[in-house]
């Protein structure tokens, strides 16, 4: 099975019918339909019906479909789950996750719905958004709280408020939280998704932030506008040189293996297991993005 990339996760406000029906046209990896903060309190039910009907009938071209539900603390999140889980098509993003117990409570509720509708228990996947100091400090136990989890995400706007600070261009205020979330995700073997960048007029600042989170190890970023898609896809896709180097490393290593050699030297540099693993990962990503096929086509011409 090929890997699932989560470079770009586009927010789609649940009550905006134009965006909901057209979201499939954008070249993103995941669509995150929102029932929480982007939907006014008196429109929650209306948005729930829109997503229920749209997700049931519209073909979103194989993109990963995620719904950000409301909090379970006031009963609204449960209603969202009642309507969306039976579709069997969406992963659930739990907002404002402060502890492993929040994940467990949501998971229990989901399991009951799966049983009620004769669905395979555990088939609905989850994501947890971490948006508070408690959430950051509990990131490790949150990430390990359920087998359903496919990733954890940073939600920075609520977090910086909780930390008594604000977002800055350098992102210094999020250093610890980002690192903590990344470590927790890697420890659990799930995706780490960075927060949104809300200044749409500063594309250079956006690109710098995308490059930084890629270097930290994140899998991708939540985005609020289609204009941000190309930059993330570019930054998160390997360059042609990286792909060719990876190809050379993997093929040289395979040849060496056949004659019983474990460590090789390539262009004067030692190549060992971690380097080979990274090279394989590059080739996996290039396969999913279609870059590898394009390069092979060019060489065959």
């Amino acid at each position, binding site marked *: 099975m090929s890997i699932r990339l989560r470079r770009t996760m586009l927010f789609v406000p649940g009550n*905006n*019918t*134009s965006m*909901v*029906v*057209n979201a499939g046209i954008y070249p993103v990896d995941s669509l995150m339909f929102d029932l929480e903060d982007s939907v006014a309190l008196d429109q929650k*039910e*209306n948005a729930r*019906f*829109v997503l*229920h*009907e*749209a997700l*049931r*009938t*519209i073909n979103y071209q194989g993109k990963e479909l995620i719904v950000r539900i409301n909090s379970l603390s006031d009963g609204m999140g449960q209603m969202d789950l*009642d*309507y969306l889980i*039976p579709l069997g098509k969406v992963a659930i993003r739990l907002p404002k996750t402060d502890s492993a117990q929040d994940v467990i409570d949501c998971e229990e509720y989901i399991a009951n719905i799966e049983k009620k509708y004769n669905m395979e228990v555990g088939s609905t996947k989850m994501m947890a958004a971490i948006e508070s100091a408690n959430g950051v400090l509990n990131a490790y136990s949150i990430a390990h709280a359920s087998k359903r989890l496919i990733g954890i995400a940073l939600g920075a706007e609520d977090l910086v408020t909780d930390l008594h600070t604000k977002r800055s261009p350098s992102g210094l205020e999020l250093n610890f939280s980002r690192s903590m979330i990344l470590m927790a995700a890697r420890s659990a073997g799930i995706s780490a998704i960075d927060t949104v960048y809300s200044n749409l007029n500063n594309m250079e600042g956006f690109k710098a932030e995308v490059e930084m989170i890629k270097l930290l190890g994140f899998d991708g970023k939540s985005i609020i506008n289609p204009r941000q898609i190309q930059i993330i896809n570019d930054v998160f896709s390997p360059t042609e040189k990286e792909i060719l180097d990876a190809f050379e490393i993997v093929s040289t290593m395979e040849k060496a293996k056949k004659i019983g050699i474990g460590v090789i030297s390539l262009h004067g540099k030692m190549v060992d297991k971690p380097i080979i693993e990274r090279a394989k990962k590059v080739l996996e990503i290039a396969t999913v993005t279609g870059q590898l096929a394009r390069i092979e086509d060019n060489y065959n011409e």
Partner: protein
Amino acid sequence: MEVTKQSVSGTLESSDIMITIEKSTIGNQIELNSTVEKQFGDSIRKTINTTLREFEINNAKVGAIDKGALDCIIIARLKAAIYHSVSDEDKQSEVFKA
């Protein structure tokens, strides 16, 4: 299911439809105003009628101002309008999740 009070769902934005539902005494009536009346008027009325039948609603006046909504959005807005117009007991019906 019985419509007990008036309710509205939807907006006048492009790709949306605004639906008003209220009680009627002379069966179901649909008043449609659509930007795509010529091509899709009959189809929209049919979608509304089918949905009303699924909820066994027989006495409702439905007003619809359509701005080019897809079928799934017409159904979603109508379901939401019905949801807000029926009794709390009827709100629990599985038909809403069908």
